[in-house]
């Protein structure tokens, strides 16, 4: 068990370093940092001085190490576009994205898993067919379009919900929250549904497919032949066995919610990290891009690590010692 955890941890570190390397390469080699920082009047000598003082003439690995060291402390330099420290921007924007993502993730799971189970167990009902058709539609509409349609219906035609911004937020010092105000909560509705829908349909289809697969196995047939209660077969046997692969993929999906937030935040002008990133890409604001990459990379690696551990915990075949068979 320990070796497994250690192994996965080591792998995570390697991935982080790779991500960091890519971010650094972007940071350093895409465009010229100096040109982006100073005005046109600066002379060549002044630029050279600046270059030297920022350590841009040092060897590659030194610069990389400095970058990585800074990154670990949350220090990413100055944004070219906003002319403020990137870390400040991140701290400012992070709560918005995280709150939105969390609500969306909860929605996707809370609705997706039960819907998947239901449509697997009641394959031919009317409700199942409706849900399946709906899910097909859900997978075929891009997230931004869902947002636009929701805005049209609830923001333009029926003016019931706000369609941009976070509403009023409460400042808790290091965190700003929209949960504590009515307008904050109302503002969360449309963006979170938009963000959740795609993931919800994916999770639902996945759970359904896995359960159908499990329901066809020999051990389920044997359980039926032993007269086990149907409810137990469906839940204790089939559902539990479907969860193993579902957990892995669901974990990855939930991680991607944070990436899809980019789209939702743009449609709804939600002041989160995603919007920041898009602006950075359009303005070629490299420090922000690099920082976003590192932060997101960290989030993904972390989620992957947790999912791997969960996998290990849930499936006894991975844990127990294989050697103890004894006898024929």
């Amino acid at each position, binding site marked *: 068990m320990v070796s497994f955890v250690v192994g996965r941890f080591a792998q995570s570190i390697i991935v982080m370093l790779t991500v960091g390397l890519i971010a650094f390469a972007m940071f350093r080699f895409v465009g010229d940092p100096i040109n982006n920082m100073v005005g046109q009047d600066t002379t060549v000598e002044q630029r050279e001085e600046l270059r030297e003082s920022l350590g841009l003439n040092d060897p590659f690995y030194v610069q990389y190490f400095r970058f990585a060291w800074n990154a670990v402390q949350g220090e990413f330099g100055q944004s070219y576009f906003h002319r403020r420290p990137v870390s400040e921007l991140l701290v400012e924007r992070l709560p918005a994205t995280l709150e939105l993502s969390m609500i969306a993730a909860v929605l996707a799971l809370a609705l997706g898993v039960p819907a998947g189970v239901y449509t697997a167990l009641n394959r031919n009902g009317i409700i199942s067919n409706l849900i399946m058709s709906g899910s097909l539609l859900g997978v075929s509409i891009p997230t931004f379009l869902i947002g636009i349609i929701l805005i049209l219906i609830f923001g333009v035609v029926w003016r019931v919900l706000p369609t941009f911004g976070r509403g009023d937020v409460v400042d808790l010092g290091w965190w700003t929250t929209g949960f504590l105000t009515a307008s904050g909560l109302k503002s969360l509705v449309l963006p979170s549904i938009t963000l959740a829908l795609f993931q919800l349909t994916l999770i639902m289809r996945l759970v359904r497919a896995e359960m159908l697969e499990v329901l066809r196995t020999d051990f389920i*047939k044997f*359980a039926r032949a032993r*007269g086990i209660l149907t409810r*137990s077969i469906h839940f204790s046997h089939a559902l539990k066995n479907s969860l193993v692969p579902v957990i892995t993929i669901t974990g990855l999906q939930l991680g991607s919610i944070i990436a899809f937030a980019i789209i939702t935040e743009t449609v709804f002008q939600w002041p989160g990290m995603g919007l920041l990133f898009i602006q950075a890409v359009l303005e070629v604001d490299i420090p922000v891009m690099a920082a976003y990459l590192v932060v997101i990379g960290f989030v993904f690696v972390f989620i992957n690590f947790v999912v791997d551990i969960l996998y290990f915990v849930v499936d*006894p075949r991975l844990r*127990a*010692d294989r050697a103890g068979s*004894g006898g024929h």
Partner: protein
Amino acid sequence: MALLDIKNLRVDFPTRRGVFTAVEHVTLAVNPGEILGCVGESGAGKSTIGNAVIGLLEPPGRMSEGEIDLKDKRIDNLPYEAIRKIRGRRIGMIFQDPLTSLNPLQTIERQLVETIVTHLPMNETEARKKAVGLLERVGIPEPDIRIGQYPHQFSGGMRQRVVIALALCADPEVIIADEPTTALDVSIQAQILDLMRELCRERQVGMIIITHDMGVIADITDRVAVMYHGKVVEEGPTKKILGNPDHPYTQSLISAVPRPDIRLKRFPLVEYIESAGKARKELDIANHWLGKVREFEAMEGPLLRLQDLHMRFVTRNAILPRDRRYLDAVKDVSFEIQQGEVFGLVGESGSGKSTVARMIAGLYKPTGGKVFFAGGELTALKKERERDRYRRQMQMIFQDPYSSLNPRMRVLDIVAEPIRFHNLASDRKETESIVLDLLEHVGLGAAAAVKYPHEFSGGQRQRISIARALATRPRFLICDEPTSALDVSIQAQILNLLKDLQEELGLTMLFISHDLPVIRQMCDRVGVMRNGKLCEVAATEDLFENPQHDYSKHLLDLMPKLDVLSHEGLEVEETN
């Protein structure tokens, strides 16, 4: 009053091409303490009967006629809840594959206790006690500890014992076992069968054993029903049916079973099955392309010689050498095969016999030892190209007819591939005519050349494999369990074909099997393998009459006793 009565059962499967009737007019009865065997080849419908009794027919199958009675009460038309209560409590079922029958994520305890508590008025503590007692009865050592383990911590045979315990734990009156020992090793099969017979007598349950294996039938059944194409062709006490069958199908089926006690010249052909191959065109072998083995250098001495062959696999790779795990599949194996001889290699699964074959054929590179073939040392060859001329002289036939042919190639191309690779024909026309001749010669007919593998049955596919193997005019043929996946009647045909070809072309053969009676029919000399080592090498008759090594004796003991089987219509070979 019989315990279980099946009356005039008919099961239909609607398919896109019409309705397929899996079984019809089936009437059977089982009494307490009695074991009824249901024997037949694949597709005969035996499993369908078992599924119908317990109400678990694969959709869209359904029972369209007849009735099933348990102690004179009809059970096939009951509502779902009523049937569910019968399953496990009054009728228990055992399936074939122990590796997939158990829920991998639940402990044995959980699975046992849940079944008991579902049907019997006990609480969990009492149920656990009963479960432990049951595990002990079926022969699981340290049941109190092992009950808390997961299925993957048990070996195949142990798992089947757990499955039996699960089928019995709610004290049913009837047990249906669908091929209960087919997936197990020979040595374990006997133990499981004994266990089942004991339990049946002890608890006075009525047992139906569904199998294709005549040995199982002869071993433990009291009565037997013979199935063919969905109908019961004959039924009665085992001794009578096996020893003196009335129906022609049963007669020919029994005559096709390889006997452990005698050696036959040829297997008699089984009536009622697919046309026993087309009459094979007589070839003037001496002048035919096939017979032109003269081009091979004549040689003195054994055609094949193995010297201290060793094969080590890495089962777990790791960065540090001390963490790696190895498996020595073959250890210090040495033997010789003379020209024109049929040498058998027998052993249980995991004994290394297939690995030896693959080392000879060049599929694995031996980790130690030498292979001498046709005058050259194969293990000393450095380049692939040098091996080519030996490859021409040595070909192989595999076990699984469903995976040994490329599903996307036409038969013509499959058989022509070796000819083209080794440039054995001068042009396309010649290649084509050689292939057509080969197909005729193995009994498939030339028209088969344009078809695809999926259009043929298992036995026919093996013939295609044989044709492909003969295409290079080899002098040495390795047969790796060539009939293990075939029905008894088809096996008889293929073995006949192999025998005929061997005589006609003077082939040297290495014949691998786990089935001793088959070895007795086919081989001149035999090597017995166990755990990678060669225990004994002897002439076939010597081995069977007078085995030297303990393990050989053990294997021979495990052979099914087929004395009850009729000897009608068999041509025994005189032992030289």
